């Protein structure tokens, strides 16, 4: 990654609530039109990362670091500037579409607000554009449905409305926070297809936050795995899923049932996510890690390149590197996959 000028770059983004740090210096780049999946257990900081970048956390949250959108730091930006960015440059959709939409306002009004704010539309133009957006996200009979309220839609349709609302400002980046978690499995696939197709049509970048590896692998070019408020591994999704490097990523993938091949026992990761008020010394995953030794309880491992285009935060990185180098020699692959 690390292209010349990313659309958005997070630098050392940290968040604390009441003195308890829940996000520990997240670094992340997203290029124009790129797709990044952010995975991890609940409480790992996936959502907080983006809520912090967009200034959507409650006032008591302390945020450090920078979130650079085309070089402009959003953390230091004024409220007014943030209002222009939110919905205009970066849109966000949420987990439970039914409660994310205002129950007492019509769909037309809720989509219209974004159109008026970011596109300067008014009067009849709002209705026409809102109808076009509803058509785009696949709501049948859009004209009539514009005057409906959220409770008159199904969960999947509400998420389509949320997506239409997000697209209203023609954003450069859509952050989808667990967009399919609250939906039926059959609807999940439809929503993911929709996200994928509108992304292709509009050329916007997409961040897909999910605890579901399947959802992410299907939609995203790159994946970042978070654990206890840190990114522990990041890389192209094909390679990350085929050959996970971090013990936590390996654990996550090991816990997935294979679609083909022989049936095997699913492996769960023992233990639970550490309490952010009382983090273990050193690597936060060490107490649950099958490979941990005394090196793991020293310093917190920093995220470092392990191959071109891949990063990992684990003391085993050194071993990984030599392992990978050895394999690269065996398979005569190009130098691209060899660690720098």
């Amino acid at each position: 990654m690390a292209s010349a000028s990313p659309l958005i770059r997070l630098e050392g983004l940290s968040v604390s609530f009441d003195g308890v740090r829940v996000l520990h210096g997240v670094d992340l780049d997203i290029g124009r039109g790129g797709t990044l999946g952010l995975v991890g257990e609940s409480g790992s900081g996936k959502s907080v990362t983006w809520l912090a970048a967009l200034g959507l956390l409650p006032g008591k949250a302390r945020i450090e670091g920078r979130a650079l959108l085309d070089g402009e730091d959003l953390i230091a930006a004024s409220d007014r500037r943030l209002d222009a960015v939110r919905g205009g440059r970066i849109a966000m959709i949420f987990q439970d579409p039914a409660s994310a939409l205002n129950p007492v306002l019509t769909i037309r009004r809720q989509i219209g607000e974004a159109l008026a704010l970011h596109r300067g539309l008014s009067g009849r133009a709002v209705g026409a554009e809102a109808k076009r957006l509803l058509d785009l996200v696949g709501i049948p009979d859009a004209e009539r449905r514009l005057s409906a309220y959220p409770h008159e839609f199904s969960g999947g349709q509400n998420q389509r409305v949320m997506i239409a609302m997000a697209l209203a400002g023609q954003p450069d980046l859509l952050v989808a926070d667990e967009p399919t978690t609250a939906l039926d499995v059959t609807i999940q696939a439809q929503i993911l297809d929709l996200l994928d197709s509108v992304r292709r049509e509009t050329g916007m970048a997409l961040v897909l936050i999910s605890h579901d590896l399947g959802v992410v692998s299907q939609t995203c070019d790159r994946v970042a795995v978070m654990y206890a408020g840190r990114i522990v591994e990041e890389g192209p999704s094909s390679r990350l899923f085929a050959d996970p490097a971090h013990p936590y990523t390996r654990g996550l993938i090991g816990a997935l049932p294979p679609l083909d091949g022989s049936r095997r026992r699913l492996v769960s990761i023992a233990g639970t996510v550490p309490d952010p008020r009382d983090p273990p010394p050193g690597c936060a995953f060490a107490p649950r890690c099958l490979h941990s030794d005394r090196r793991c309880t020293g310093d917190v491992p920093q995220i470092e390149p392990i191959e071109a285009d891949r990063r990992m935060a684990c003391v085993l990185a050194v071993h990984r590197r030599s392992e990978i180098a050895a394999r690269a020699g065996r398979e005569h692959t190009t130098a691209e996959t060899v660690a720098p």
Partner: protein
Amino acid sequence: MLRFFSLRVFRALLTVTLVVTFAFVVLRMSADPALIILGPEAPPEVIAAFRKSWGLDEPIWVQYVDYVAAIFRGELGRSMRDGRPAIELVAERIPATLALTLPALALKIAIGIPAGIWASLHRGTFVDRTVMAAAVAGFTVPSFVLGLVLVLIFSVQLGWLPSGGQDTWIHAILPIVTMGVGGAAVLARFTRSAMLEVLGQPYMRTASAKGLPWARAIRDHALPNAAIPTVTIVGFMVGTLIAGAVVVESVFSWPGVGRLLVVAVSNRDLAVVQCILLLVAATMVLSNLMVDFLYGFLDPRLAAGARAGGH
């Protein structure tokens, strides 16, 4: 929709019937109007004649059937003291009461709702704690205590305002403030908690995420939702417009419906008491119906439920 409202109307009538029946029975069981009005020294034959002329010698259920039948003919009975129709006695007191309760209601709304919103937007700060401390003080002090304290300060000590009577609008100030303070305190607390509930909802975050300035998100997204529970309390206050001033009218010797009720009860002037209670039950029930109707207007989910013939 029709089923929704006919069910509501049926419940309303049931409520009025229960109130009227209860009052009827209790008033007649608790004391003998003939003895109270004529005095214990009155000769037995006078008392018997009085009882006969008012139908008090009949069994209670006969009296009740007569009473209900009269209501359906539009007759609410006559005062046992001066023989005038009870409804007339009550009706001439209503303007005086409304002259207190309507401005007091306006005061409750004008102070209580903004204070509640203000506190909710500054949750946990000094502003919030001050407003809520004032609110707790406001509704824990009974109105007769507050009324007397105000009289002590503004009439006795400062001499600015009269302590009782009904001659000019200045006489109305202290009773209105006395009633307004308690109601404003209740409304402030309800509005605050309704707002806090709404502010924590995911759709408020959606509003911010789409770039709506915070002040507009509050106005367009939070207030319409917080209005729903607040309307319930305001509706309850509207229901007490007629009879909500009993204590304050007594403290400030204000000749309204409340004082008429106190006098009529102690005299066992049955028709007048029943007439007032019927009126009170009817206003309460009517304001509840209005609240139900407003719900349908404020909350599209309920309107849909009503159209579908739901609860």
